[in-house]
């Protein structure tokens, strides 16, 4: 093997099994690497954990939204600058329990609000394919770490696309499991009814390996049901008999879709057919209202979830004589502009006189979108869409237009609203409309709730056929 950093999770585990690699060496290969992408917010002197177990020795980067006892955890926010959690998130605990070791905490948009990682209080993250471009968000640091050779796998969270979209922008695999698969305990809440933890990996099989360890009911999260049937390792080599649906609202009719993305989608559809799938156009008639419903529901829940940052029990406080001054100044100083915007939006949507028009209506639109998926899955085993209408955009290009930034989630938000699992895999490279090097394009496969095994199987077969090199960015494209 040329470099330990080439190893996927599965390959590394096999190497350890074959005694070609000592478990501790694997994490050591990543420790102390220069982080020119700004992917990490914190790295320990020695990797944490790394015991025996099904993931014994697997190094993992963890989005800074997961609490780890006595490890700095900021959620990308100034307001948690010196916060040391008194407990560890269940997902991390399960990984550590399976023998994984934590390489560090990765950068992210503040409280997971953003699609470019430009809302972090601790600086931008750069896309390893073109360091003038964003890695996507909100789990930008995790995506960049995996694509940039700084970790073989990473944890992220996805509320409206925060795993899938950065995975697409960085050319790696990103899985958002069914809502309820993995415990949210210890995962700092943005929008509780949408937030879901998931892995960034270089292969679909690696995503399955991590999901198998992390999923399952947790007594600390009543909404975590786990995947009752479990998750099998993907093994499919073709797609014969698989009915693939392409929802036109998120594909041919999607607004603002770049030509390069369109081409990759067309190539992927052709590939599916050549693998034996039947591909048909389908419809999610209400999906185009996803962004509207999402930008009411998520900010509304966030306005309550972020109210606890009040300078009383933890976090940064701005001292003041009066209680209300203390609250208002603390929160004004602690939160960045996007977080304030969403708190305002959510507070407004829930306020007296507006609830029915905004929150009540959005919840009903959510019902309609969930039904659209149920209908689509009556005739299709998986749905195929682009993950994002665009490739990674230049840093700073959308920061002045919140709505344009929100549209980056257009293809990923409907699945979050419906709670169904979705995975982004690299579909190929495409030129950006504004020039520069070719950039990865993600394609998204979507399955019915708790249908992870079949979804990962299909993604695995397609991934093999596409043959994208997820190590290309950090190796300078040498072997691509």
């Amino acid at each position: 093997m040329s470099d330990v950093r080439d190893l996927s999770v599965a390959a590394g585990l096999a190497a350890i099994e074959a005694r070609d690699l000592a478990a501790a060496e694997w994490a050591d290969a990543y420790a102390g690497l220069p982080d020119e992408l700004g992917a990490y917010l914190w790295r320990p002197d020695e990797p944490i954990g790394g015991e025996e177990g099904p993931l014994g020795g697997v190094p993992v980067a963890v989005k800074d939204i997961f609490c780890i006892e006595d490890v700095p955890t900021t959620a990308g926010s100034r307001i948690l600058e010196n916060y040391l959690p008194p407990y560890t998130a269940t997902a991390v605990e399960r990984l550590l329990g399976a023998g994984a070791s934590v390489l560090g905490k990765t950068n992210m948009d503040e409280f997971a609000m953003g699609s470019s990682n430009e809302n972090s209080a601790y600086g931008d993250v750069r896309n390893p394919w073109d360091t003038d471009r964003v890695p996507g968000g909100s789990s930008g640091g995790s995506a960049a770490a995996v694509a940039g050779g700084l970790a073989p796998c990473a944890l992220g969270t996805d509320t409206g696309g925060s795993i899938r979209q950065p995975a697409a922008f960085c050319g790696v695999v990103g899985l958002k499991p069914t809502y309820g698969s993995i415990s949210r305990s210890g995962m700092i809440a943005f929008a509780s009814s949408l937030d879901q933890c998931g892995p960034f990996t270089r292969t679909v099989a690696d995503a399955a390996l991590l999901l198998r360890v992390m999923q399952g009911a947790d007594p600390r999260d009543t909404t975590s049901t786990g995947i009752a049937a479990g998750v099998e390792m993907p093994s499919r080599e073709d797609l014969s008999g698989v009915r693939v649906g392409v929802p036109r609202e998120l594909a041919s009719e999607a607004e603002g879709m770049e030509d390069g993305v369109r081409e990759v989608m067309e190539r992927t559809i052709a590939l599916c057919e050549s693998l034996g799938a039947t591909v048909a156009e389908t419809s999610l008639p209400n999906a185009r209202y996803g962004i509207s419903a999402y930008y009411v529901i998520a900010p509304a829940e966030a306005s309550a979830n972020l109210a606890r940052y009040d300078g009383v029990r933890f976090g940064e406080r701005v001292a003041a004589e009066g209680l209300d001054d203390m609250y208002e100044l603390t929160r004004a100083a602690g939160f960045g502009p996007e977080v304030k915007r969403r708190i305002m939006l959510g507070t407004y949507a829930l306020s007296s006189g507006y609830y029915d028009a905004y929150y009540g209506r959005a919840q009903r639109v959510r019902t309609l979108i969930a039904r659209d998926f149920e209908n689509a899955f009556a005739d299709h085993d998986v749905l195929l869409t682009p993950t994002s209408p665009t490739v990674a955009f230049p840093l700073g290009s959308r920061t002045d237009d919140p709505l344009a930034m929100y549209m980056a989630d257009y293809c990923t938000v409907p699945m979050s609203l419906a709670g169904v699992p979705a995975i982004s895999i690299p579909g190929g490279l495409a030129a950006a409309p504004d020039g520069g090097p070719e950039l990865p394009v993600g394609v998204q496969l979507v399955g019915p709730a708790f249908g992870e095994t079949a979804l990962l199987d299909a993604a695995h077969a397609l991934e093999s056929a596409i043959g994208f090199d997820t190590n290309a960015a950090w190796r300078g494209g040498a072997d691509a």
Partner: protein
Amino acid sequence: MIDRKQVLHVARLARLRLDDEEVERMSAELSSILDHVETMAELDIEGVEPTSRVVDAENVMRADDVAASLPRDAALANAPDPASGSFRVPSPQA
């Protein structure tokens, strides 16, 4: 359209102190986002039940068994202003 007065009212509810420039910008940005959000009004939602959560389960509870609490030092470790084993705050009535 969300005007200056509404912005200030909502900021007060959310305990966010905004300066004048932020109020202006918030008014414009929230208005533009809400304009987009209001496209939902095109949909007929008559008789559609709201979805608050997508988990199809109920009665998930825990037994009334005591679990370990945090040692007080740990509970207070992150406190900006601990005093007398408690969390000190400016008085609500001051």
